[in-house]
């Protein structure tokens, strides 16, 4: 920035032609602001010295050499450095030779200065030895000295491959989500909806013995009432004729009321949550002649595995009109249905459900169909679509969990 304290320097640079264009413009603006300095600025121009060609050196002739002298000089060995280098090179003398020798050893000198140093050292043995000694001060690393603990310094990352890590992460997330879901729901439903198991009608070990439960309602009393009402609209004899192996025991109405309800059920199976190594493999059962009532699954039934499975049952699209006695209950049931679907969706997203059996046939009964797959018992679970049943073993480990409209099944 040009100020009144430094403008002289800019004036000088301007007239010497070394002031950059930007600063020239700045200088002009400065002069516009400080017009009193313009006189001084233009006076500078007067100070520029012009070459005076009238002044000549008088003894020029004496300086000239004849041709013979010139030839004689040619005979002298030429200098190692050129005249131009000699003119530019630093003067080496007794006072500065040591620092220049250091600079020479350090490689800090340009060619001209380095040559000047070499000439100075070559001219005198004393300085030549000094230069050699200085060159000896360059120390070389001892390559035999090596750090002994190199291996211990290295780091080795023992990690999970990315692909496997993803699996572990996914598994952990699924487990956490499932645990969160299950244990956040249990406190709500455990105390309200869990019902005791009802043994299979007749011989529990008979694979064809199926016990069904009435379509549950809000609590036990209306549940039974509704069931009885449904029974009145169902022919026990007809059902018995179609399912002759079903033997009604102590609660025949209770069982028949359900069988007669044309209910569509979404069956979702979550496999492998509990494993019992000593469990008996399920015995495949022959197909039963109950085509009108038995729900058929698409494709063959899953291969039996020597373990207890957990089935998640939920209503997907119940035909409430056909089994609900009054229309005023329907809205509540539809609400349950929506919530049931939502819950089923949540379970599917968090647990990786592997089988969903949609069944909408009015005259089907998936429970009977499942009886053919080796079901040994059916337990009534809850009073509405969000009934949850849990069964734990002696150690408190969860061995069965069912969510839905009141059914948990256990394979033999």
């Amino acid at each position, binding site marked *: 920035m040009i100020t009144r304290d430094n403008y002289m320097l800019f004036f000088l640079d301007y007239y010497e032609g070394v002031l950059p264009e930007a600063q020239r413009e700045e200088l002009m603006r400065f002069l516009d602001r400080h017009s009193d300095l313009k006189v001084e600025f233009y006076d500078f121009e007067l100070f520029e010295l012009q070459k005076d060609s009238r002044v000549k050196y008088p003894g020029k002739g004496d300086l000239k050499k004849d041709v013979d002298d010139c030839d004689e000089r040619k005979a002298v060995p030429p200098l190692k450095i050129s005249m131009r280098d000699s003119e530019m090179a630093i003067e080496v003398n007794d006072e500065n030779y040591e620092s220049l020798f*250091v600079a020479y050893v350090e490689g800090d000198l340009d060619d001209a200065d380095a040559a000047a140093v070499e000439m100075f050292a070559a001219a005198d043995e004393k300085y030549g030895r000094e230069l050699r*000694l200085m060159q000896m001060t360059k*120390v070389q690393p001892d390559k035999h000295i090596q*750090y002994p*603990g190199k291996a211990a*310094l290295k*780091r080795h990352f023992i990690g999970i491959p990315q692909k496997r890590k993803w699996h572990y992460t996914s598994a952990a997330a699924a487990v956490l989500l499932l645990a969160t879901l299950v244990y956040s729901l249990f406190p709500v439903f455990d105390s309200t909806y869990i019902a005791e198991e009802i043994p299979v009608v007749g011989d529990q070990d008979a694979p064809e013995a199926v016990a069904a439960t009435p379509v549950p309602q809000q609590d036990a009393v209306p549940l039974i009432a509704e069931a009885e009402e449904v029974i009145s609209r169902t022919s026990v004899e007809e059902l018995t004729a179609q399912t002759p192996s079903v033997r009604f025991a102590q609660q025949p109405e209770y069982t028949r009321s359900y069988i007669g309800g044309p209910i569509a059920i979404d069956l979702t199976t979550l496999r492998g949550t509990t494993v019992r190594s000593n469990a008996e493999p399920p015995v495949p059962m022959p197909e039963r002649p109950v085509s009108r009532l038995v729900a058929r699954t698409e494709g063959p039934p899953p291969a039996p595995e020597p373990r207890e499975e957990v089935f998640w049952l939920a209503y997907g699209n119940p035909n409430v009109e056909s089994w609900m006695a009054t229309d005023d209950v329907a809205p509540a049931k539809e609400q349950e249905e929506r919530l049931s679907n939502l819950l089923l969706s949540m379970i599917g997203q968090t647990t990786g459900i592997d089988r969903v059996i949609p069944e909408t046939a009015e005259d089907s009964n998936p429970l009977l169909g499942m009886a053919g797959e080796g079901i040994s018992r059916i337990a009534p679970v809850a009073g509405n679509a969000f009934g949850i049943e849990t069964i734990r073993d002696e150690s408190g480990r969860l061995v069965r969990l069912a969510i839905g409209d009141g059914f948990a099944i256990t394979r033999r």
Partner: protein
Amino acid sequence: MTTAQYNQCVDDHSDGVYRFILKNTGDEELARDVVQDSFEKMWRRVGEIGFEQARSYLFTTAYRTMIDAIRKNSKQQPADETTLNGHSYTDEYSGLKEILEEALNRLVPIQRSVILLRDYEGYSYQEIGKITGLSESQVKVYIYRARVSLKNYIRRIDAVI
């Protein structure tokens, strides 16, 4: 810097850092500790330090760790040019290397450090300044004084031999 690059730094620079510290202190145990400490510090910041800056970081860290250690260790008594004058020379030197080693040991620590960084590692004045915390001019002055001291020592020994 990746783990692989870090391990590459161990291969490339641990010997150099170790030599630098060992020649400065003459203490193998201290040199090992300083190297280990320097790499440990670098590992802690491995995500921040680029592979290209690793060498400079290691030498800088090692130098400062060494200075701290020397300050703590009162036994460290660096020789200087005055002690050099009072030294009784012998003819037990078998070659220039030993003479130079001895001369190096007699330099004041800062001169020895800058000479080692310059000659062993080929650092520029500016780089040495960054490592040692000196200005470039100071580095030049220390190198000049160190060279003159080394030269004088060699000349005296050379005369005796």
